[in-house]
């Protein structure tokens, strides 16, 4: 699972160089405080287990590079050139992201780092990015509470709050600390207990009882919610203790009445990122070319969720999981458009409205839960086999 990459102790030199490079492209003020370079390089040396000699050599090279770049005309390039530079950065980050997924690199949290960098590059291209220093940018990109599993914040908002340098007061300790405690309970007590019954090919093969199979997918559904939202709670709570209010990532997603509401409350920062930087620009592009509304919607939603699926990992199953949700959202939109009159009639009848709402929650939960079959199992044949067995088709 991309968002739960196996942790390693080494933040690679490459990732730090990439972050510094993106900062270089997107900012006008490129002066690097020498102390920062020193700490950075020695830090890499210590964390990466490099010898003092190698660390010092890296320090010297980085220093010389910084001085040289400061003297180059790159500082004064024209706007179109900067756009090209930004595009180059986007291509580089996407290529690295794809490469890391395809080859299973263990860069901790790189999926999230890459999306932060892409967001910055895309904002820069749109001309809506303020200048910030390299330490600020590094802090935003590698902010440790959110490094491994998000949430994905926006750089301008994050850095503005960082600059406020909020003091640690009692309310922050209670709210941030309380959130961390809740997150720890969700992750290490509930999720880790449910993880013991996690959906695996072996468990599916050994279970010859359909009710049992349904139990396993329900368990997985709650496992993944408590696991991921627990991580997010810990990140948000820790962020708060550091004076940063990270964006919320989950808001009772399994209690939503339709799939659209679900995606507004599940991994909210990822879906918001895709909405801002991919879905809306693509939809606008299609509309400008006067594509039919449903074709626009179909292409935009399916491709958005295909990419969300592939962001989790470059496998057929993640792609199918994404398409499952893309198709579901498209179908939901079609049904909504064709049942507006009926729904207006239902809304005037209290009990009927409640029943439809409860039915909607149940339907949405089950649609999402069945979708996890693709997410949890490694192969398509395992997933299809399980889905067929769940409905008595095998």
């Amino acid at each position, binding site marked *: 699972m991309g968002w739960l990459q196996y942790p390693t102790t080494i933040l690679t030199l490459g990732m730090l160089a990439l972050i510094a490079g993106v900062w270089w492209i997107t900012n006008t003020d490129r002066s690097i405080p020498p102390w920062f370079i020193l700490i950075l390089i020695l830090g890499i040396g210590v964390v990466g287990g490099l010898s003092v000699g190698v660390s010092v050599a890296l320090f010297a090279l980085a220093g010389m590079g910084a001085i040289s770049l400061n003297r180059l005309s790159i500082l004064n390039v024209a706007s179109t050139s900067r756009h090209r530079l930004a595009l180059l950065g986007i291509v580089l980050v996407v290529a690295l992201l794809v490469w890391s997924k395809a080859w299973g690199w263990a860069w901790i949290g790189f999926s999230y780092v890459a999306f932060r960098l892409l967001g910055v590059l895309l904002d820069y291209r749109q001309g809506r990015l303020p200048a910030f220093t390299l330490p600020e940018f590094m802090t935003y990109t590698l902010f440790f509470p959110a490094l491994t599993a998000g949430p994905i914040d926006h750089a301008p908002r994050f850095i503005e709050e960082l600059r406020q340098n909020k003091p640690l*007061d*009692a*309310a922050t*300790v*209670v*709210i941030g600390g*309380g*959130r961390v405690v809740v997150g720890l309970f969700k992750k290490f007590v509930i999720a880790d*207990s*449910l993880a*013991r*019954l996690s959906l*695996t090919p*072996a*468990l599916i093969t*050994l*279970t010859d*009882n359909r009710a*049992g199979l349904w*139990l396993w997918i329900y368990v997985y559904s709650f496992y993944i919610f408590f696991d991921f939202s627990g991580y997010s709670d810990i990140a*948000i709570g820790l962020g708060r203790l550091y004076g940063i*209010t990270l964006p*919320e990532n989950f*808001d*009772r997603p399994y209690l939503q009445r339709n799939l659209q509401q679900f995606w507004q409350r599940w991994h909210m920062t990822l879906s918001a990122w895709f909405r801002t930087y991919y879905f809306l620009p693509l939809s606008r592009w299609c509309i400008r070319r006067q594509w039919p509304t449903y074709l626009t919607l179909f292409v935009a939603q399916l491709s958005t969720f295909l990419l969300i699926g592939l962001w989790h990992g470059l496998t057929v199953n993640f792609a199918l999981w994404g398409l499952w949700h893309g198709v579901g959202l498209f179908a939901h939109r079609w049904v909504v458009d064709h049942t507006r009159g009926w729904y207006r009639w239902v809304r005037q009848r209290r009990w009927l409205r409640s029943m439809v709402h409860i039915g909607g929650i149940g339907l949405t939960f089950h649609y999402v839960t069945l979708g996890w079959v693709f997410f949890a199992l490694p192969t398509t044949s395992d997933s299809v086999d399980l889905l067929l067995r769940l409905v008595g088709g095998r």
Partner: protein
Amino acid sequence: MQGWDWLTRPTYNWRFVRRVLMKTALLLIVVNILYLALNPLPYLSRLTLYNGLFTGRERLPFSELNPDEYSVPLHRLEGLLASHVISDTPKAPDEFRVVVLGDSGVWGWRLQPDETMTACLTDSHVQIPDGRVIHAYNLAYPYPAVLKDALILQQVLVYEPDVVLWFITLKALYIQDQTWHPLVQNNPDLAQHFVEDYAVNLDLSPLFPEPSNLLGELIDLIRDRSILGQRRELADLLRHQVYGPAWTLTSYDYEDPRFFRPLSNDLLPNNANRNYTHIPEGTDLATELAWDVLRAVVEIAQGAGVGVLVVNEPIFRATGANSDRYYNELYDRWAYDAYRDLLPIQAAHDGWDYVDVWDALPNDVFSEYSLHYQAAAGCGLMQRLVPDMVGAELSAAIPNRDSYRRFIGG
């Protein structure tokens, strides 16, 4: 933070934070002291959803923490037995109840619960001459150590076995290995009672390290008896219950490693594994092995009118050039031969029934370890032992054992 109003609504100050931290610390201390005073772990261990909401376990839960096996390594005997099917199976009038003790080979290493020799014996529905049908229960637990078996046996006598079938091997009798076993280490009081009540000549001091001073004693107490100290046991008890649905729906409690290195017929010094203990030639095994434990176990069982059949279990027997030194990855040949020579002498001396089936299985049925064999081989072995089990029950019922032996012609 949406949805977090309960946390964000009030106004907090440092006084509030101090109060919360102090109350939390106080609560932690009070709860730990209460827990320490009440020592509820033995009672908590008996609380189980198995044999009720979930199916009882067919063998004692054991795990090497592979993620795909639905078991955790519980080490409190109460917890182990509470989830076992025997603790909730009333004895039928026509049941000949056999409790099987032993090590990993008997527990069923590399086998699923329904493939073990115990399961095979039950599934065979063997009827003994008086019409009762054999139902065997697997109470074995991995790693050989007779003291561990003795502790289990003391607990299972309440389930009215007719016969205890006890598989032993030389390694199970090594005195230095008795206190090492996790079941013994985690049930030191039971071990101490056993040793004291039956005058067993075993040094249990490794189980009860002397605290250096009062502070050391306090630290030991907190480590052993508080919630903080027992957090692992408590977590494992919870995990054990969590695995209940998986066990009930899959009957899968052990992940069989797909690949293993088959046993070599000619071991070299560098591939005799960690299980090998070299015993210097000439060592007097009559005094160096835990025979006392066997004597005490038979005494306990026969005191309860339960027969014990001691079985010297089959081993892999190398024939290569180095086989004198490495008979297998466990033993020197001379040591194993000396042990076998001693078995009938000790049996006659202490009055226990035994069967020596050390060479009953051909080498090609062993898997990766000299005490682990294939399901079919174990199954056949059990069938072969049935007459001896019946004899052991009779033996326990007859006060004059010599006359019994004459009766059966032994």
